[in-house]
């Protein structure tokens, strides 16, 4: 049961061949069995999940049509507010906080009848590429428990690869959905910025954060995408436009016909910095796309080389402001409130004790980049680079339908191998970051194995053309198939 796709489970539940409660129970059992090793979850809401499953079963019994994912269990990254259910963003500063409200995305998941199993582990405030920066300890890659599951959404990806959940929600600021998808052999999509609501998503970098769907197949990812996407009046940056039909696009791509599709290879990503095994898998996949009828051309995006430095100014700048509200006054951790410390001291002690090293590093970088006298040289300059990168994308999509690259330069690395050098960690997002700066959609789909570990293939499309990337992703899947990790 746990190895079935979400689409299959949804159909079985809808036809009442199996109940949502049984499916939910099976996944809860699996979590109980393997999560001690994987540690994908920070919080498992067993009672809430079973109650939700029974409610869905009841509604289906009454003849309600709740859609294709009704009754299907899902894991949600712990950065989305869930009413009454602990939400920590992987940080000590929010330990024990139970939000009084649901994120829009969570509301939509409930409305679609999906059953939330619990909240998944992540790098603190979504800052990291390995989930090692979680204040609650790392998540382990189901492919090799000595390796990282990617980050920041390592928990959401590992839960899929470990068959603890058929669906999960991630958030992608610089690659936090796609890179974990790549290194765990699962699928992860970053929708167009503004295509999915950020209301209730604990902000890291407001102009980049994008929640999105994760699953083991492209079709499941598209089904989940269709549930969560669409305009939200509570998010001013949400786009008031129809959601492209990503499910139809995925099904079209699954036929294996890419006739008329133009695929662009980014010249600047032609191999430097990526492991040979990753590049080999990438080239093989590109050749396969050509065989399916796609026209493959090389495209130059000269400013992509400046994406990483620009990102590491913009994201920390925004985070330095977004994370200012964590001060112990209204919610979460409060340190030093013993009658011997002033209010200002309580606020700074709370932040000193509540934030981990990577979060502090970025707050300090961002505070510096926004300071008077440095703003133009750092934040201002980075915004100019962002504009140039956007122009590169716009020009590229006048020539091609999608751009492709490896998702991340390297396969899952050993725990602890990059934590001592932040720059080595930042390189994990080399290929994913340009899309975030531009705002378009991108997806990672498995392209095979290198040294026995999964490799991800990234497909990027123009803003609001999420359908195009799903079509190509499904075509890749039709050639590569889904990847099965060794038994835990």
């Amino acid at each position, binding site marked *: 049961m746990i190895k079935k796709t979400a689409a299959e489970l949804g159909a079985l539940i809808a036809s009442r061949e199996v109940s949502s409660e049984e499916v939910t129970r099976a996944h809860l059992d699996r979590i109980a069995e393997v999560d001690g090793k994987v540690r994908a979850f920070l919080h498992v809401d067993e009672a809430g999940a079973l109650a939700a499953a029974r409610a869905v079963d009841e509604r289906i019994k009454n003849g309600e049509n709740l859609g294709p994912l009704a009754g299907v269990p899902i894991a949600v990254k712990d950065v989305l*507010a869930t009413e009454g259910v602990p939400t920590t963003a992987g940080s000590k500063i929010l330990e024990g906080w139970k*939000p009084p*409200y649901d994120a829009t995305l969570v509301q939509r998941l409930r409305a679609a009848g999906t059953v939330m199993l619990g909240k998944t582990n992540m790098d603190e405030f979504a800052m990291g590429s390995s989930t090692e920066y979680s204040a609650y300890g790392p998540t382990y890659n189901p492919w090799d428990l000595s390796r990282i599951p990617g980050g920041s959404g390592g928990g959401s990806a590992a839960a899929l690869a470990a068959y603890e959940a058929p669906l999960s929600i991630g958030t992608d600021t610089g690659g936090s959905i796609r890179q974990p998808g790549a290194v765990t052999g699962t699928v992860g999509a970053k929708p167009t910025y503004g295509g999915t609501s950020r209301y209730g998503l604990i902000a890291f970098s407001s102009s980049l954060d994008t929640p999105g769907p994760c699953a083991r197949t492209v079709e499941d990812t598209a089904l989940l995408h269709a549930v969560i996407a669409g305009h939200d009046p*509570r998010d*001013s940056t949400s786009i008031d436009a129809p959601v492209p039909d990503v499910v139809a696009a995925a099904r079209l791509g699954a036929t294996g016909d890419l006739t008329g599709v133009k695929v662009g290879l980014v010249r600047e990503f032609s191999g430097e910095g990526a492991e040979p095994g990753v590049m080999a898998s990438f080239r093989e996949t590109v050749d396969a796309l050509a065989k399916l009828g796609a026209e493959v051309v090389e495209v130059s995006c000269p400013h992509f080389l400046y994406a990483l430095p620009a990102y590491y100014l913009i994201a920390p*700048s925004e985070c330095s402001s977004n994370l*200012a509200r964590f*001060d112990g006054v*209204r919610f979460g951790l409060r340190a030093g409130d013993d009658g011997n410390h002033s209010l200002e001291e309580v606020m700074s002690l709370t932040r000193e004790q509540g934030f981990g090293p990577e979060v502090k590093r970025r707050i300090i970088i961002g505070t510096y980049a*926004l300071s008077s006298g440095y703003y133009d040289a750092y934040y201002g300059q980075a915004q100019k680079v962002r504009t140039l990168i956007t122009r590169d994308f716009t020009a590229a999509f006048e020539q091609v339908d999608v751009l492709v690259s490896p998702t991340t330069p390297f396969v899952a690395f050993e725990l602890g191998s990059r934590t001592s050098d932040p720059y080595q960690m930042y390189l994990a997002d080399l290929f994913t970051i340009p899309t975030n700066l531009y705002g378009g959609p991108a997806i990672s789909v498995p392209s095979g194995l290198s040294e026995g570990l999964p490799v991800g293939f990234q497909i990027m499309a123009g803003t609001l053309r999420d359908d195009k990337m799903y079509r190509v992703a499904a075509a890749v899947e039709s050639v590569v198939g889904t990847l099965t990790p060794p038994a835990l």
Partner: protein
Amino acid sequence: MTTVAPPAYDDVTEEFEPVIGLETHVELGTRTKMFCGCPTEFGGEPNTHVCPVCLGLPGSLPVANKAAIEATIRIGLALNCSIASWCRFARKNYFYPDMPKNYQISQYDEPLCSDGWLDIEVDGEIVRIGIERVHLEEDTGKTLHIGGATGRIHGASESLVDYNRAGIPLVEIVTKPVPGTGARAPQIARAYVTELRDVIRSLGVSDVRMEQGSLRCDVNTSLNRPGDDWGTRTETKNVNSLRSVERAVRSEMIRQAGVLRSGGRIIQETRHFHEDTGETTSGRSKEEATDYRYFPEPDLAPLAPDAAWVAELKAALPELPRVHRQRLQTAWGLSDLDMQSVVNAGAVELIETTIAEGASPEAARKWWLGELSRKANETGVELAAIGASPRQVAELQKLVDGGKLTDKLARQVLEGVVAGEGDPAAVMQARGIEVVSDSGALAAAVDEAIAANPEIAEKIRGGNQGAAGVLIGAVMKATKGQADAKTVRELVLSKLS
């Protein structure tokens, strides 16, 4: 430091030229807050008008209030500003517990309205005050610091925060520097804030009540010697009434002149005005002040007011106070000078309302500019806050017109009204004030007075009517002033003719 006696104001303005500037904050009277649906009502139990957005809970996002944007544009138009066709909100970052997010959503280098002016009238002369910018931002919560000597955050044993006010839309109106006002700087500052208040009130976008904090004013002041560059300015906060605006400028001019004369240097700093002493004291120094790290607010879409909509709003602006006043002046038949004294007393609207309540223009003006203005000056309160309402003044006049009160008695009744004893009729009853109109009782009093002053009576009989004053005085004394002097006079003369 040795204390040197502050220089006299006349000497200050002889030696120095002031440059003033005003930053005014206006809380808009929108139904809901700037970025969420919480109510904006004043009062309410602490932390009851709050939600995840205005509490800054993790994950919450702001959505801009369109009514607030419209109100700001209308203020900008009334102040002859250009309205931006595209602009953004910005975050002003600083840590303070009354700021739920530890940043304030404001506007920085892209204000919604800029480069306008407001004409004010001072001593019958029009002075044009340049408007630098009008922008929109959110208000903060309120902090109450308990314990400690100062009531401020330092040394407090407990700090309580009420977020009901957090997120209420706030419009900031900043003037350009105003040079060349000389000795009239304090008066001009006050006239500007008064006119600005009246303009905003006429737009119906705020109740602009300084005492409730819905209109707040910071005053910038600097001095320079003639021919020199402008001096270093200070920013005076806590200026909570129109009268304080005038006093704050004046006192800051005197203070700065004292510093400059003794060879000192003005520090760019925030100063606090003290209502009781009329002086300013040093707050935090701007030279070591927070770097606000402004950057465009990424959670909000840019504002792009449609030109046609702005034109519509402009066409629909109401009659502005200066035009309105000209119309009233004609209707009331006042000279420029008389109207000026009405304006200076802050009595235009009070008189207008009193007339609407039934009083004649002459009577309304007489009460507000006479007795009530005198009391307001004595007690140092705004005329509008004196304690008597236009309706009560109109009622008082009605009693005089109906012969129920003499002018003199009416003044006693008004005193009771101002003291909060109730409406005129209630004060009359409570204080036992009434005109003695019982002709029998009055006639008896007149007879008594005649009997007690036979020589005077004889004089009057002899045709010396001027001598009647003594008898009238005696009657008034006997009736404890509750008789109508005119009636008494008639009675005396008729009895002695």
